[in-house]
């Protein structure tokens, strides 16, 4: 490590620690800890959601994938951008109107049962841990590559830092780390894309012609990575619907004061992600042309260092150091958000509401949240230390698949379907979760005849991401569960609650808003 890169890193670490220090003085209640007191502005939350969204997998992974496989890498960009519309149109506002701290809070506003909370919290913890391992493994590999630090030490550094932000600064600090990082990432990406574009005389056709002439037309159409339609449709479904089921994204809607601000947040996120992912074309093609395959693959077979290598080519050591520092900030921000979400499921849902019946003082709640954060951090650091060789992008797309299958159907039914009941909710969540895990375990990421997966053998289900089966299955289970057990439910009471949910979801009316 040289002086310039050390400077950038210390700058970012210092800035985030100052933010944490300021936030820590304002964090005294459970609401401060989990949701920053619900006081974030629309643009702040919009940047923070973008900060959650543009993970290392998006920044390093997508540009690397475009550099190595052309259009196939860009599939991800399209999925991440359109997913904003699902959030905006059917999830964000009702979520804000019905929820408090967690997804389970929102579901139990309609079905006040411990089993619903238990299943929802379990799903959240599984998604958070899968996502977290992916981020930590990626972080470890990246930092090892950039500074030559041992993998285990790199994971520990990131682990200790994320725990510090969450433990002391709660959601306020975590949000500001995400906002700062989203701003830096947007700036860094725009700069890289501008420099690449200038080398093609600001002519898009010239850039594509160069790729076509030098590397072949196959980079400009799909088929290098995804060969079957059904496989790519399944993955695209997981991306577009999974975002709306990821607990750390959903939790961000509780950090604003009303539905209107939740809407403004997603509007900001949509613009930021649309701009960012348009630029991934320049990053990908730039790395393909100026860095070259051999050098990209030599550094990292999955292409994860394509963007830093491009920065080195375009701006030497200074730009390389800056982009690496941004990538580091990206990882820190995303894992902090994940720790907080995991902690909320453990300490608020499982400990506070299920075990203690919600009878905790404010002080006990904050203490429980801190203990929850430390436990989820320790578990994921330990798992990440053993998971070094796992395929990172597989883990991420799998988390999306579980989000889309276990969470999205139950959220939609809760808000929009009158006849939905508690049995249907449990059926939908359990079916979504279990079918993802089973089909995933039988799939090509676990079984491969050539031995580049965990076990050698023919995969029984030949879908990398089984979303195309598991999402309809979960919707169907929710429907069937509700219809079959309809006679067992106290219909009058169920309808009364649904009417209340419907009025709340659509008008945002609540105790505080109407004075009678």
């Amino acid at each position: 490590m040289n002086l310039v890169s050390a400077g950038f890193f210390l700058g970012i670490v210092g800035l985030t620690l100052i933010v944490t220090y300021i936030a820590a003085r304002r964090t005294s209640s459970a609401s401060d800890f989990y949701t920053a007191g619900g006081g974030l502005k629309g643009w702040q939350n919009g940047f923070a959601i973008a900060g959650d969204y543009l993970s290392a997998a998006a920044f390093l992974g997508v540009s690397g994938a475009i550099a190595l496989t052309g259009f196939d890498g860009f599939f991800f960009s399209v999925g991440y951008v359109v997913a904003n519309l699902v959030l905006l149109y059917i999830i964000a506002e009702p979520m804000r109107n019905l929820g408090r701290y967690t997804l389970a809070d929102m579901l139990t506003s309609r079905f006040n049962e411990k089993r619903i909370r238990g299943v929802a919290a379990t799903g959240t913890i599984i998604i958070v841990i899968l996502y977290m391992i992916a981020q930590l493994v990626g972080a470890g590999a990246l930092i090892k590559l950039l500074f030559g630090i041992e993998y285990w030490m790199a994971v520990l550094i990131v682990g200790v830092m994320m725990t510090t932000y969450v433990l002391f600064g709660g959601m306020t600090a975590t949000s500001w780390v995400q906002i700062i990082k989203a701003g830096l990432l947007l700036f860094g990406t725009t700069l890289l894309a501008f420099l690449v574009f200038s080398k093609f005389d600001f002519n898009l056709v010239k850039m594509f012609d160069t790729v076509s002439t030098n590397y072949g037309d196959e980079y400009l159409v799909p088929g290098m990575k995804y060969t079957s339609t059904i496989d790519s449709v399944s993955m695209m479904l997981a991306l577009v619907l999974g975002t709306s089921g990821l607990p750390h994204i959903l939790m961000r809607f509780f950090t604003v004061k009303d539905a209107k601000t939740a809407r403004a947040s997603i509007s900001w996120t949509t613009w930021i992600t649309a701009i960012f992912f348009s630029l991934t074309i320049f990053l990908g093609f730039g790395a393909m042309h100026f860095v070259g395959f051999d050098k990209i693959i030599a550094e990292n077979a999955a292409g994860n260092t394509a963007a830093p290598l491009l920065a080195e080519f375009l701006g030497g050591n200074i730009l390389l150091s800056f982009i690496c520092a941004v990538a580091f900030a990206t990882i820190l921000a995303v894992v902090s958000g994940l720790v907080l979400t995991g902690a909320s499921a453990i300490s608020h849902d499982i400990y506070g509401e299920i075990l203690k019946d919600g009878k905790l003082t404010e002080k006990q709640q904050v203490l429980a949240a801190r203990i929850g954060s430390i436990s989820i951090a320790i578990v994921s650091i330990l798992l990440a230390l053993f998971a070094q060789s796992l395929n990172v992008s597989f883990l991420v797309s799998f988390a999306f698949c579980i989000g889309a299958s276990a969470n999205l159907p139950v959220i939609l039914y809760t808000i929009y379907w009158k006849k939905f009941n508690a049995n249907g909710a449990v059926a939908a969540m359990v079916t979504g979760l279990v079918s993802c895990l089973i089909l995933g375990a039988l799939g090509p990421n676990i079984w491969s005849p050539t031995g580049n997966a965990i076990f050698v053998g023919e995969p029984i289900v030949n879908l990398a991401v089984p979303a195309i089966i598991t999402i309809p299955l979960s919707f169907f289970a929710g429907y069937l569960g509700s219809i079959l057990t309809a006679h067992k439910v106290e219909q009058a009471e169920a309808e009364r609650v649904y009417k209340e949910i419907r009025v709340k979801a659509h008008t945002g009316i609540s105790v505080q808003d109407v004075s009678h």
Partner: protein
Amino acid sequence: MSQLGDKISAKCDGINYEKIDRMEAFNQFVKKKNTFLFGITITFLTFYILLPVLAFTPVLQQKAVGSITWVWVYSLALFIMTIILCTLYVKMASKFDKAAAAVLQEYEKAGA
């Protein structure tokens, strides 16, 4: 739940949800809103999922401008669609906000 239970729960948080739920203005507003939300959602999901379906057919594999193939043009169109529909939503949502406020006002006037 009994009539008595109704009265108690209505008293507890001060809002008679049953009454709002029965209001015609409320039901019209919700119907209009849901038609818009789900109509647009189905539309954009259809255009979106056609990308991986058509991407493997010759339709999108031909060149559009220079070496730029139609898959890129289609993808770019999805980006533009996202921005347009995002703007449309924000516009419509503030109309819905007004409608919701009008419903609540009517409810308050009638007396809870």
